[in-house]
Structure formats: C-alpha cells, structure tokens
C-alpha cells in the first residue's frame, strides 16, 4: 500500500542507511520484559544470525498489514524471520493441533506478532473465543497500550502521552455463562487477588522503569463492592511498595468523561479486563483511531505484539485502504524488545516522518 511504500522510500533515500547487523545476543538476556524469565536454557541466535518470530496474521486486514511489515523489514534489512501460522475462527482454520503448533513455535521463539483473530458471535460448544484461549494458554496477563499523539497528525487532543495497562486473563472475559432459568442468563465476572496483585505490580514496575510519575486504578467498586473492591484493595497494597509513584483511583464512568474533557491529567492507568477494552478504544480514538496505536501483551515468558485497538476491520479487506501505521509501530516495538534498537528506531522514525510530512495518509 502507498503508505508502506513511502516508508520504504524513506529508507532507500539514504536518510537512514541499513547495514547488516548480526547479533550474537540471546533472546533471553536481550528481553526488555520486566519479569525475570524462568530458568530455561538460553536461546542463542541461530547460526545464520537471524531472530525467529512467530507471526499470526489473523482476520480482516491482518494479512495485508503483515505484508506491509514484511516489506518494510526487507527494505531495512532486519534480521528477523517469521514463522507464519494462519488461525481464524471465522474461516474455520482452528483446531487443537493448530493451537499446539502455535504454542510450540512460541516456546522456541518467545516473541510473536499478531493480527486480530475475529470472534464470530455464534458459538459452537466452547464459550471462550480463540483469542481468549490463546491468551490464557500463554498466560498473557498484561496488555500495554501506549497512547501518544503522532506529530503532524492533528486530532482534538494533541500531545497526549498515556499508557493503559489492562489485566487480560480474567474479569468479565471469564467465559462462564449459563442459562439458570429459561430466559435468564447469568454471566460470571471473576476477580482474584493474585491476578489483581500481579497486574498492579506490573503497572508499578512499568511506571518505575519508564520514569512515569502516577498510576491511576480504574474501577467500579462503588457498585461491584466485592469484585472491583478486591481489585482496588490489591492495587492499594501494591502501591504502598512504591512510595515514589503517586497512586490515584477513579471510577470508570468518571474516567471516560475525564478522558474526553481533560486527558492530560492521566499518566499510567491500570484496570481489569472489560474497562481496559473500553478505555483502550476510547483513548485510541483520541489520538486518531485504531490504525495508529501499537500495543503489546506480556506474560512472564512471552511477548506478543499487536495493535492497540484490536479490530479485524473486515470491511477494508483487500481494498488497500487499511492504515499500516499501528502495525509498523508495533513491529518497531518488537524490534526494540529483541534489542535491535537500531532497526527499531529506523522504522519508527521513518513512519513518523511520513506522517509528519503528510504526504500519504490512509483514510
């Protein structure tokens, strides 16, 4: 697509000259994930000096966006090879075996780049969507979305810089539903102290590492006194271990209102699953939409890179109109995670330059 070609042009014009970059660093030591990786044999770079990354294109515009990433990586001479797996719930390309293949690939690569696997509303048997199953098996408990305004791309709120951290494995997405009486459906939302503490610790560690000053916990504990009350309590307990970071709490509906009136008051936000989904999308809309926001998901062993607001955008499929910015920025983040700082900066600078110049912008 035109935007991707522009980024390639930014490389070849000589404003950034790629050079072959062979790394002998192991994936384990080069990981910028905050959690110490469990005891496992250090993964050496392959003899051909290339990192292997699992790639799951997903549905909708996923495959096109992945093509854009591959083109840009080729132009920048990035030493990454992709192990591709095509999973799709809507196209019936899912099965236990395929899931096992992806998981074993992840075990050796530890890093993945992924598009959105669309969840159809009709379900057969299992209530959990494929994405949820993948997330649970890999225990990707933390979803981090960095909302920052792109220079040159004007929206109603400019110069935004927030981070949204969302607990991704429990909460409202527990997929525990049943029809207790005909016409009455019960849906369980599960909150555990362990997972709430884990995500709170992740948020504070993240804030400390990135030099952030404030963490705001978002909740609805005035109504869900036990559930969100437990989440809030866990956040408060963890906050006491980090006296240098300011800790605040805010109710979700007020938070949404404040985000559209004065988003600059926020720094890092941490919240359970559903509220995270809402705030991710709301904040993505503030800086320009799902096409410009990168995101990543972490577990203690793996890192999965994807866009911030996850939509398959099926109506744009095949029409060459999808915005690859989010996926390209995501791939740059992935390269940083692999300690390929040089290539990471090259790609993100090129993307930002293209947007700033305003030469090519998708609808």
């Amino acid at each position, binding site marked *: 697509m035109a935007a991707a070609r522009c980024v390639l042009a930014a490389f070849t014009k000589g404003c950034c000259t790629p050079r072959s970059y062979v790394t002998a660093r192991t994936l384990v030591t080069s990981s910028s994930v905050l959690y110490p990786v469990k005891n496992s044999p250090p993964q050496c770079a392959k003899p051909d000096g290339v990192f292997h990354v699992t790639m799951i294109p997903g549905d909708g515009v996923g495959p096109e966006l992945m093509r854009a990433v591959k083109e840009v990586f080729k132009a920048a001479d990035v030493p990454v090879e992709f192990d591709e797996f095509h999973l799709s719930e809507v196209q019936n390309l899912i099965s236990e075996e395929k899931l096992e293949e992806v998981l074993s690939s992840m075990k050796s690569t530890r890093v993945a780049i992924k598009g959105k696997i669309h*969840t*159809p*509303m009709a*379900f057969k048997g299992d*209530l959990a*969507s494929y994405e*949820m199953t993948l997330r649970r098996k890999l225990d990707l408990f933390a979803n981090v979305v960095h909302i920052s305004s792109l220079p040159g791309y004007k*929206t*109603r*709120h400019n110069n935004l810089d927030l981070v949204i951290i969302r607990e991704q494995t429990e909460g*409202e*997405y527990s*997929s525990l*539903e*049943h*029809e207790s009486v005909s*016409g*009455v*459906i*019960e*849906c*369980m*939302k*599960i*909150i*555990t*102290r*362990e997972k709430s503490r884990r995500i709170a610790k992740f948020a504070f560690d993240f804030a400390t590492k990135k030099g952030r000053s404030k963490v705001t916990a978002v909740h*609805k504990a005035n*109504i*869900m*006194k*036990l*559930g*969100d*009350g*437990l989440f809030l309590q866990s956040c408060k307990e963890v906050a006491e271990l980090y006296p240098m970071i300011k800790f605040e709490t805010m109710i*979700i*509906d*007020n938070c*949404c*209102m*404040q*985000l*559209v*009136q004065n988003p600059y008051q926020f720094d890092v936000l941490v919240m359970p699953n*559903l509220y995270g*989904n*809402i705030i*991710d*999308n*709301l904040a*993505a*809309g*503030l800086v*320009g*939409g*799902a096409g410009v926001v990168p995101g990543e998901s972490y577990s203690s062993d793996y890192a999965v890179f994807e866009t911030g*607001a996850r*939509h398959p955008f099926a109506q744009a499929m095949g029409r060459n109109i999808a915005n690859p910015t989010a996926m390209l920025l995501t791939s740059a983040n992935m390269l940083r995670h692999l300690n390929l700082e040089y290539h990471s900066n090259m790609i993100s600078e090129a993307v930002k330059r293209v947007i700033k110049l305003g030469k090519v912008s998708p609808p």
Partner: protein
Amino acid sequence: CETCKQQLGTRTVTMIPGDGIGPEISAAVMKIFDAAKAPIQWEEKNVTAIKGPGGNWIIPPEAKDSMDKNKIGLKGPLSTPIAAGHPSMNLLLRKTFDLYANVRPCVSLEGYKTPYTDVDLVTIRENTEGEYSGIEHVIVDGVVQSIKLITEEASKRVAEFAFEYARNNQRSTVTAVHKANIMRMSDGLFLRKCREVAETFKDIKFTEMYLDTVCLNMVQDPTQFDVLVMPNLYGDILSDLCAGLIGGLGVTPSGNIGTNGVAIFESVHGTAPDIAGKDLANPTALLLSAVMMLRHMGFSQYAMNIETACFDTIRDRKVLTKDLGGNSKCSEFTQEICERVKDM
C-alpha cells in the same frame, strides 16, 4: 399552547429538591416554569430513607403515594451520607418504582465550547439488571465472583422503549451496543431481543455495534450516532462519556422511565456542598431535565419555549454561571431565562 392546556389540563408533578444545591436549582426551575406559564403544579416531597415496618429501608410513604398519584417526578441531586446505614437513595428510588430505562439526550450547547461540536444523540440504558444486579460471592479467600444477569423480559422491555422513544421523537436509527462476541450468551440474548423488537418497528433503522467500536468512533465522530440502547454497565459508561462530550454532568438532562407510567426526571450531577446556598449553582441540568419531562407529558410547545430560552441565554454568553465560563449568579441566570421565555 392554550389547546394543550385545555386538552391536558394542569398536571401536578412531585418535586424532590434534593440536597446541597438541590433546593436552589429546584427553586430556579419552578420560577422559570412560572414565567413560562407552564401548566404544572408542584408538590414538594422529601425522600430521605426511613426504616419500614419489615425492617428494610423504604422511602417515606407520603412521597411514594405522591409519586403513585402524580406519576411524574422531578428530582434534584441526592446525597447518601456514608454512615447513614441505608443504601444509595437513587438505588432505592429505582427499586421502589421499577425504573427500568434511563434516558440521556446529549446535545451540544452552542456557546459552551467543547472539542466536540454537533453532538446530538440519546443513550438509553437498561437500569434494573445486568452487571449491577449486586450479586457477588467470595468463592474462596482471594477469589470473588460477580454475577451479571440478563433476562429476556428486561431486554425486551428496554428495547421496546428505545424504539418507541425513537418514533415519538423523530429519531431515525437505533443502535444496540453490546459485547456479544465475548459474552456470547448474555449479550447474545440482549441482542436477540433487540433484533426481535426491531422487526416490529420497521420505520426505524436498526444497527448493532460492539461497545469498543462505539467508544472508538464516538470520540472521533459522534455525529454518526443517533439513539443507542444497551445493558446497564455499558449504559453507565457510555452515558457519562457522552455527557463529557457536551460539557459534563452540569449540563446533561436525564430521565428514568418506570412501569405503570411512572417517570422521574433528574439532574445527574452531585450535590456540590461547597457552593450550596451561595447562589452560584447552575440550574441547566435540572432545567433541561424538566424540559424532557414536559415533552414526555405532551406539553411540547412549553418545552420548546423554555429550552429555546435556555439555549439562547447560553449562546449569548452574557449571563452565565461560573461553571459555564461566566461570573453571574444563579438568580441572574434564572432571571435572564425568565425574561426571554416571557417574550415568547
């Protein structure tokens, strides 16, 4: 208009002034209605909870009788003191009168600039079940389960209300907001009911959209939305989000529709104890809720007059309360609206 008055007669409405700035903004609204010669008589009642015969908390019987008789109520902000022992007043009212739908029209105010212009949508939220069922258990220490309840009956009721509202207020589209891709059974049921009701309202367009997509699009282009109908939690969040788009809770009207024709219109902001009694409060939210009430009762001409007077005052930006960017008093703002409405 005189014909309305003749056909409908003067109606009595239960007025619940509320706490904090409640009494002053209620007085302001009554003054404006007087100036507009609206055919409304007010019956003031207090709803502070008392212990009933069975030991559970109820609202005072004379308040309940008044509402049952008049059917229509206007309510200011209520506070629930922390050590009061009784549950939230709003919750109590909701349960007493089975207020199943909360309606919030959000319209951009000319003269009160926000980054979002041309907002004109209505959020209709199911108010009795969903995530706010209050059913929670501690399964084992450190694991809590909250139950979200969705029933066929409540979903159908709110969907029917949404479509009727759209029809009565000349709105063209109703959008169901849900997360049926994740909560496949519960939101799936809600969505199914909306679809069924849509079949019987062929003159209104029906669309459905995921909650996250709505949030994403709402902050980029709110003009694409018309009437939104959704379960409890999403409604709570989205209605506050939309209030934020037009300027906050101080300018947003709200109405609660119950069974047996009961409807309570209210301002959704807080009691603002720091400015109570100082003639600084902004009565816009309560006034616009009262206008909604007039329309609900069929007094559309009076509603139009009062609303226009209010919007004109705000557009002119000469006499505005502090929260709207001016430095006039509540009484001055009220007076200005009264003058304008008298001229109509």
